[in-house]
């Protein structure tokens, strides 16, 4: 299985070589090998005696993360869908994409996506699942933005990326919580601890986070907005990612965790509630669209909502119906996208208002579209698979368990009505799609090119898919016991008998519901023009796109505003902020740890000359602040420096005194030199309030330093090291000047780097002045 999962990516490495020959042979033919091989590898698993297979490979054993693959009925269904439709889509894309396109990039992204999807559905380890999950987001981003010179492509790609990654990250949070609670990273092992998870105090959070991941990926309300914008992708991508595979990753996730979560009533409320809302909203909005792929996008949203709500019902009938519909939806929606691509390819437009009467010009496409849309609408004919799943959906919506939450009971009562309502609109847009495109009057003058039937290669993939629609329609029990029953068992959590699907099962409520859908739907479809203006009032201008745009726009503006608030470019402000931060932290620590100490023992006596020197220095320092003349300020500052040198003399530090004297002289001289060259700067006028703030900050900072110094002096935890130096300076260093012995011998490395600093400073000054002159000379 490891090889099967990574086969597409391995092939992707060689795509650039293959694409060199793309003029002779379309790169897609090489790509075809990967999904076909995987499909052939997994098909033999279908059968009545299927039992789950699991394989493990080491990845990060220390974190308990391994490439654990687990193939049960659920993963088998998805793996076959991904590889099967992947093969058909690749084949279709060979005829859809011209050789002048950047084929190498397209197929590399596509193969990357295949690996990601295989990984998502086969992983048993939550963190591996998450890795592949994000890889689908990234490869989908690349595929949507394939025609990156288009504004719409970039917008759609970014939007889908932001929304799906938002969900993916929440899901990661949920996974982390799950793995902490259960102390395992394996999903199968988590299922055995379902009661531990359900009784955990974090259960609500876990459920919300993981469902957020599933809902964003599967375009559930209100995160559905990225899917219509993702229609900017090439049509094979839309057919593959946005109908059959990636958008079902969220469905897969919910199905995978159903054995754990289904014990909770909130799972039913969220999954079914959001699902049914998405169904109704998606089908209602689909009628409004004018773009073929726009209709199909909203149709996908609504169908996904239907599957999602069935997973929420949690009865065995509902789950079987969901599984059945996953298969059916993949067949008819894939074919419909391909036909939309054909229409686009052959007429040059996807705008349904400019299309019409294509049935005589494109008879095969029209026939295929007829099967696809009628199956999607759930028209009761014995050769359309959509009808069966819709019928089972109605059936399941009537048999929801009674719940302990009052709110859930209201929801359970409302669901059948909402289901019928959504299905009526599904019928309306399906009819609109097929009749608007292929029937009615011809509008050839509005088309860029003269339409004709697509090449046979392009038609093969939709034909195969429609054959699937019809075969499942005629023999609905063909794969039930050998295939779908295993899937249902994997989701439902306990063995179950294969459900027998029949076209005719008597005059029962679901049939009446279907008839209502067809009847009301047909009336609405033919009077569509007269009530279409309802969309001007509801939703009118309201749209979640507006919310998304507002959020993106406002977050950019707000962050710019916040940054501009404190990043003003004023060094004074930064200085004030830094000092205030230090003040708050230091005083805070002093306060919390009760760190202040005051101890006068061991203090030396204060002599008169010390007082005199200190007073002189203090006066000079204060004068520096108040003098307006800069040169004077420097000279007075020099007094402080020389006072310090005197203090060093008093405190018997001859080396320091000498150095301080010379260094002070040099600094003053350099300062004078610099100020001599300075241009006459404008006198700074500061507001009084600003001045007051500065005074407060500086006084506070001075007091902080004083307090810290006093406390540090009063708290002696260890013996001084200076005694050691005094004792050993001569013995070890051979010198009587302890300071110098410390500098060159005991702590020589400090001195070494200090002279390096000096050297760097000298070279920097040299470079600054000389290089500037050179530039000015030029």
């Amino acid at each position: 299985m490891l090889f099967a999962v990574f086969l597409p990516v391995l092939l992707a490495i060689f795509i650039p070589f293959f694409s060199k020959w793309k003029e002779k042979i379309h790169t897609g033919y090489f790509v075809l090998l990967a999904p076909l091989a995987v499909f052939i590898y997994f098909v033999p698993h279908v059968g009545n005696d299927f039992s789950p297979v699991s394989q493990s490979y080491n990845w990060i054993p220390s974190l308990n993360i391994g490439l654990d693959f687990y193939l049960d009925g659920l993963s088998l269904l998805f793996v076959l869908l991904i590889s099967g439709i992947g093969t058909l889509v690749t084949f279709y894309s060979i005829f859809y994409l011209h050789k002048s396109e950047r084929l190498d990039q397209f197929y590399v992204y596509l193969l990357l996506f295949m690996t990601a999807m295989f990984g998502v559905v086969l992983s048993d380890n939550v963190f591996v699942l998450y890795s592949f999950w994000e890889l689908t987001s990234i490869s989908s981003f690349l595929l949507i933005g394939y025609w990156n010179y288009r504004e719409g492509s970039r917008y759609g790609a970014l939007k889908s990326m932001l929304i799906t990654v938002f969900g993916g990250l929440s899901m990661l949070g949920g996974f982390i919580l799950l793995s902490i609670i259960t102390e395992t990273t394996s999903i199968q092992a988590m299922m055995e601890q379902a009661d531990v998870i359900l009784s955990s105090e974090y259960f609500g959070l876990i459920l919300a986070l993981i469902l957020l991941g599933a809902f964003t990926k599967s375009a559930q309300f209100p995160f559905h907005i990225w899917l219509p914008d993702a229609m900017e992708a090439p049509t094979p991508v839309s057919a593959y990612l946005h109908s059959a595979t990636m958008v079902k990753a969220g469905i897969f996730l919910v199905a995978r965790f159903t054995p754990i979560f289904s014990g909770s009533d909130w799972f039913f409320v969220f999954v079914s509630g959001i699902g049914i809302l998405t169904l109704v909203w998606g089908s209602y909005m689909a009628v409004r669209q004018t773009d073929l792929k726009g209709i199909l996008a909203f149709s996908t949203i609504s169908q996904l909502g239907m599957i999602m709500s069935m997973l929420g019902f949690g009865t065995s009938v509902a789950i079987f119906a969901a599984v059945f519909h996953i298969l059916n939806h993949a067949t008819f929606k894939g074919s419909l996208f391909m036909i939309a691509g054909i229409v686009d390819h052959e007429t040059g437009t996807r705008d349904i208002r400019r299309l019409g009467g294509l049935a005589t010009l494109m008879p095969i496409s029209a026939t295929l579209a007829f099967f696809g849309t009628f199956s999607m609408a759930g028209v009761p004919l014995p050769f359309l698979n959509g009808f069966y799943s819709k019928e089972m959906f109605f059936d399941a919506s009537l048999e929801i368990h009674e719940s302990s939450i009052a709110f859930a009971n209201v929801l359970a009562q409302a669901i059948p009505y909402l289901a019928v309502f959504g299905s009526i609109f599904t019928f309306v847009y399906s009819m609109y799609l097929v009749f608007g495109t292929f029937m009615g009057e011809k509008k050839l003058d509005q088309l860029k090119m003269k339409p004709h039937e697509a090449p046979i290669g392009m038609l093969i993939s939709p034909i195969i898919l429609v054959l699937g629609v019809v075969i499942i329609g005629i023999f609905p029990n063909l794969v039930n016991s050998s295939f779908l029953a295993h899937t249902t068992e994997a989701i439902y959590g306990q063995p179950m008998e294969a459900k027998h699907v029949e076209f005719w099962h008597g005059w029962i409520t679901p049939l009446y519901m279907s008839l209502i859908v067809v009847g009301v739907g047909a009336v609405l479809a033919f009077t569509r023009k007269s009530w279409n203006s309802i969309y001007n009032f509801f939703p009118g201008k309201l749209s979640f796109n507006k919310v998304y745009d507002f959020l993106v726009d406002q977050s950019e503006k707000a962050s710019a505003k916040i940054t501009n608030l404190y990043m003003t470019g004023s060094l004074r402000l930064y200085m004030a902020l830094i000092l205030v931060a230090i003040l708050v932290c230091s005083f805070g620590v002093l306060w919390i740890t009760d760190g202040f100490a005051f101890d006068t023992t061991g203090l030396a006596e204060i002599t008169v000359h010390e007082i005199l020197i200190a007073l002189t220095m203090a006066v000079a320092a204060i004068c520096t602040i108040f003098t307006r003349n800069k040169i004077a300020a420097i000279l007075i500052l020099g007094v402080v420096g020389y006072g310090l040198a005197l203090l060093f003399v008093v405190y018997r530090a001859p080396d320091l005194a000498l150095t301080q004297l010379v260094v002070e002289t040099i600094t003053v001289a350099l300062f004078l030199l610099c100020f001599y060259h300075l241009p006459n700067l404008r006198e700074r006028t500061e507001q009084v309030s600003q001045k007051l703030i500065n005074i407060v900050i500086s006084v506070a900072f001075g007091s902080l330093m004083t307090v810290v110094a006093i406390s540090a002096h009063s708290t002696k935890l260890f013996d001084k090291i200076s005694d050691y130096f005094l004792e050993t300076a001569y013995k070890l260093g051979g010198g009587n000047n302890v300071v110098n012995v410390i500098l060159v011998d005991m702590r020589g490395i400090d001195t070494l780097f200090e002279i390096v600093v000096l050297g760097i400073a000298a070279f920097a000054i040299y470079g600054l002045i000389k290089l500037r002159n050179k530039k000015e000379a030029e």
Partner: protein
Amino acid sequence: MVKTNDLILKTMTVLIAFILFGFAVNLFFAGHNEPGGGFIGGLMTAAAIVLMYMAYGERAVNKVLPFNYRTMITIGLIIAIATGVGSFLFGQPFLSQTFDYFHLPVFGEVELATALLFDLGVYLTVIGVTMTIVLTISSDR
């Protein structure tokens, strides 16, 4: 403009510069046992050179002391690092210093320490740094 005659300054400089050089060398060698050392010695030497520059002008001093002070920084740093690396030859950690007493023909009993070599590096670097800064800034416009 009348050319000023700074004969007194020049004459005094000849005397004082040599006294300063002597003081600087004394500071440098005394460092191990008395106040002083490479740093202050270097600064004093630089002060003497600056005095010569002030009295005699750039051209004359460049002729008498034809040093490139940037090279001097490099040499000083190399010496300081080399004394550190040298301790590896004796299987000692970086910058280990040692000393011993020798009987030299003229000076008699003398203490020689490897720390003096390190201090020489400091000395040369400080001279180089000070002179580079002063000359660079003063030669600017």
